[in-house]
């Protein structure tokens, strides 16, 4: 499987070059790769059907327990076949569709990459690998949806899809990791074995919510469905592939895959049936309302996804078989329909129902394939769609899910009507202007619809052919022992058949009474008016607005407020720590004779400080600071630190000189108060608070004993081992000379910096 994935990636990598070398043939050549992969997967069918999954493992990140492990069971195999099979035709199709497009090669790059990612996703057994491929499908689909990227709408849709599926991805990551941690296993197969434990786990609801979020976003379940119709801005092959056959089914795949692990509980049942049912209804209703061929198809896809989710939610044996059947049927007919619709677009220049009519004579092949696929969609015999629908009805009826049955009935009726719409008017209706210049498409565009429509027919007639695989799929979703399956196109007069008849009748009624129905639908929609696109825009602009507001409130470009934030933070953190942790001790005042001088010096320091604050002119401030500085120096000297004292005096003077040299070039301080009254108050609180906190900590520190062993060592060895009598200097140049090395680097850099500031100036406007 890894080989298949890598081969497709390789094909993707060479696609642009190949396209440049063989512009007319490249898509045929490239299609060989997924085709061979499909062949390989087809060869695995007997084994898998016999109940022996194919396993592969490659080491990846063993320290995290992550491996590239793959497991091919019925579910994976069905998906893999669809991906590679439909994929091959999509590649061929897109070669025709994009003929002469300057970025055709790049398109193949993306779509093949997507194919590889999708293939990885459905075959991965390792949780993290699954996630990796999941995300890769999101990214590649972003590229594909935005393929027509000069178009602003395409870009918007791409970002929308990226965000929705990306959000699902985040949930998936959290959910998978939770699941892995809760079960202690990091492969799906191993986790499935401990499903019962997981379902009883305290975090089960969290996992469920997260994973459902992932699946619902990916599979466009209500209320995350809105991105899918917008994604139709992508070129038709993308719609055909991603948005019908594969990517959107990734969510369905995930649900099916997790069914044995998380399924079978009340929340699971309700979440899935509810979301699935609503989505199915919604999709049907919207499909009826739409007039753009691709939009119609997109909404029917929603309906199908809803049905699939609903079936998983019901989860009975029959429902799962129906799930497998409907999955296959839908993929085939929807793929065919999308490609054929593209062909119509390509041939006639429009996809609007109102502009189409009488194409049968111009595009007979396209018409034929659409007809077959539409019949399958409508669920009419002898097509696969019929079989699938019968299976659904049969099981749902038998289990007595009457609400679900009603939903399905309505949805299927809508499908019938839609199917009729798709074929009858464009092909058999009165010819329109667009039909005038319409022409039949070439083999590249028709190969896909032909094969897929053909398969719909073939499988319908010969249901025994896919039966084994469908059974294996259902087994995989159920997670139990294999059950034998015996499907027939004709299975007698059953309630299901009756329901089918009802569906057909309802559907026809819908089709022929179309406009009243449409109107009533529109009315309903007006009542429950949720313009999802508008809502989406609102959500984004709300987010953007929040971001803007918070950012401009915090980062408002005013240094004073930055500093106020910072000091407030300091005060808050230190103050809270002192209050919450305690620890303040008062060392006790032990005044002795020298302290009088200490007090005077302290007063001088504070006087200088006060002077600097009070100062009206800069000179006043500088001179006040000089008092503080000299008092500090005197304090150093008094405390037996002559080196420090001298240095302080020197530095004090030098700072003064530089200050004066600089100040001579600056304007006077502006007259008037420096800040407003409230600011003054606030700043005073901050200042006094921080000063107080520092004092408190300092006092507490001073009350602790201090180990003097370092200093004693310096004192003892300074002369004997380092040959210096000035211990401070020996520390500076020897014991801790490395500090001084850094220090002179700072000094040197400052010198250089001043030079650069004054001499290295680029001209205005950014260029030297």
């Amino acid at each position: 499987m890894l080989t298949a994935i890598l081969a497709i990636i390789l094909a993707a990598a060479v696609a642009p070059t190949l396209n440049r070398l063989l512009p007319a043939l490249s898509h045929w050549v490239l299609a060989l790769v997924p085709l061979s992969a499909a062949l390989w997967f087809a060869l695995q069918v007997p084994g898998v059907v016999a109940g022996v999954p194919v396993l592969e493992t490659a080491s990846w990140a063993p320290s995290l327990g992550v491996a590239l492990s793959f497991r091919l069971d019925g579910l994976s195999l069905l998906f893999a076949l669809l991906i590679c099979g439909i994929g091959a035709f999509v590649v061929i199709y897109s070669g025709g569709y994009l003929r002469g497009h300057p970025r055709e090669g790049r398109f193949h790059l993306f779509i093949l990459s997507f194919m590889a990612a999708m293939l990885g996703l459905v075959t991965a057994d390792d949780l993290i690998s699954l996630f990796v491929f999941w995300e890769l499908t999101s990214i590649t689909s972003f590229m594909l949806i935005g393929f027509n990227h000069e178009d602003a709408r395409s870009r918007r849709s791409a970002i929308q899809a990226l965000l929705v599926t990306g959000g699902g991805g985040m949930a998936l990551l959290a959910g998978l990791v939770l699941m892995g941690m809760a079960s202690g296993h990091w492969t799906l197969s191993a986790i499935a074995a401990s499903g019962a434990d997981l379902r009883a786990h305290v975090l089960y609801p969290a996992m469920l919510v997260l994973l459902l979020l992932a699946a619902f976003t990916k599979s466009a379940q209500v209320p995350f469905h809105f991105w899918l119709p917008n994604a139709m801005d992508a070129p038709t092959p993308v719609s055909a592939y991603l948005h019908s056959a594969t990517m959107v089914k990734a969510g369905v795949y995930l649900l099916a895959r997790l069914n044995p692990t998380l399924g079978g509980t009340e929340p699971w049942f309700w979440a899935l049936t509810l979301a699935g049912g609503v989505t199915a209804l919604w999709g049907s209703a919207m499909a009826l309302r739409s007039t753009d061929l691709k939009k119609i198809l997109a909404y029917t896809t929603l309906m199908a996804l809803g049905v699939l989710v609903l079936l998983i939610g019901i989860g009975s044996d029959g429902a799962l078989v129906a799930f497998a059947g409907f999955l296959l049927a839908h993929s085939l007919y929807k793929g065919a329909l999308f490609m054929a619709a593209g062909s119509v677009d390509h041939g006639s220049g429009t996809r609007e129902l109102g502009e189409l009519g009488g194409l049968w004579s111009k595009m007979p092949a396209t018409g034929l394939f659409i007809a077959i696929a539409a019949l399958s969609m409508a669920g009419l015999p002898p097509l696969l769609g019929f079989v699938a629908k019968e299976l659904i009805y049969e099981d749902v009826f038998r289990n007595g899910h009457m609400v679900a049955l009603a939903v399905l009935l309505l949805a299927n009726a809508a499908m019938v009507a839609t199917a009729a719409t798709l074929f009858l008017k464009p092909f058999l209706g009165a010819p329109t202007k667009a039909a005038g210049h319409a022409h039949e498409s070439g083999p590249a565009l028709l190969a896909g619809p032909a094969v897929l429509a053909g398969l719909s027919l073939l499988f319908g007639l010969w249901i025994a052919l896919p039966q084994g695989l469908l059974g294996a799929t259902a087994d995989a979703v159920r997670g139990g022992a294999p059950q034998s399956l015996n499907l027939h196109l004709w299975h007698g007069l059953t309630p299901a058949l009756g329901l089918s008849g009802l569906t057909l009748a309802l559907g026809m009624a819908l089709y022929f009474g179309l406009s009243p129905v449409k109107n009533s639908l529109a009315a309903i929609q007006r009542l429950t008016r949720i313009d999802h696109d508008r809502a989406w825009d609102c959500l984004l602009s709300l987010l953007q607005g929040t971001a803007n507001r918070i950012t401009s409130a915090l980062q408002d470009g005013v240094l004073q407020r930055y500093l106020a934030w910072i000091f407030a933070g300091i005060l808050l953190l230190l103050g809270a720590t002192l209050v919450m942790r305690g620890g303040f001790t008062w060392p006790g005042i032990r005044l002795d004779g020298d302290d009088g001088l200490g007090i005077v010096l302290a007063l001088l320091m504070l006087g200088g400080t006060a002077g600097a604050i009070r100062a009206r002119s800069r000179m006043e401030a500088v001179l006040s600071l000089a008092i503080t500085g000299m008092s500090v120096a005197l304090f150093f000297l008094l405390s037996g630190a002559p080196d420090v004292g001298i240095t302080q005096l020197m530095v004090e003077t030098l700072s003064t000189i530089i200050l004066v040299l600089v100040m001579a070039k600056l304007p006077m301080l502006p007259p008037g108060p420096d800040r407003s009254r409230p600011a003054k108050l606030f700043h005073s609180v901050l200042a006094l608070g921080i000063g107080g906190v520092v004092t408190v900590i300092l006092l507490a520190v001073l009350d602790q004993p201090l180990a003097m062993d370092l200093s004693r060592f310096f004192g003892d060895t300074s002369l004997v081992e380092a040959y210096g009598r000035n211990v401070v200097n020996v520390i500076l140049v020897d014991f801790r000379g490395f500090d001084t090395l850094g220090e002179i680097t700072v000094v040197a850099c400052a010198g250089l910096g001043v030079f650069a500031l004054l001499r290295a100036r680029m001209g205005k406007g950014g260029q030297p």
Partner: protein
Amino acid sequence: MDSLILRTGVRLLLPLMLLFSIFILWRGHNEPGGGFVGGLICAVGFALHALAFGVRAMRLLLKVDPRTVLGAGLLVGILPGFVGGLLSGAPYMTSQWLGAVGTPLLFDIGVYLVVVGAILTMVETLMEEGED
């Protein structure tokens, strides 16, 4: 700053200050002082000269570009640390003494030069800035 009195005063003071700065540097290992303070005094002396006589006069007196002094000082500060390693593989900055002269003193000279170079670079550029 055309003050005759100041100029005469500085002419008398500068040699004294330079002498004092070397003195401070030299005995720093045994008494208060050292490369940093010494360098500061030296720089202050030259800066004073610049203040009284102008930057160009100071530059003539100094003869080398302060930036060269800066780089050289840093180099002089870094290199003595290697001596121990070259001789015996001892770690960086392991001191080596030959009589009263040791690598820490060389290092201190580096400090002195860096300080002089840096401050004079600053003073020179700042004062020239004013003259434009």
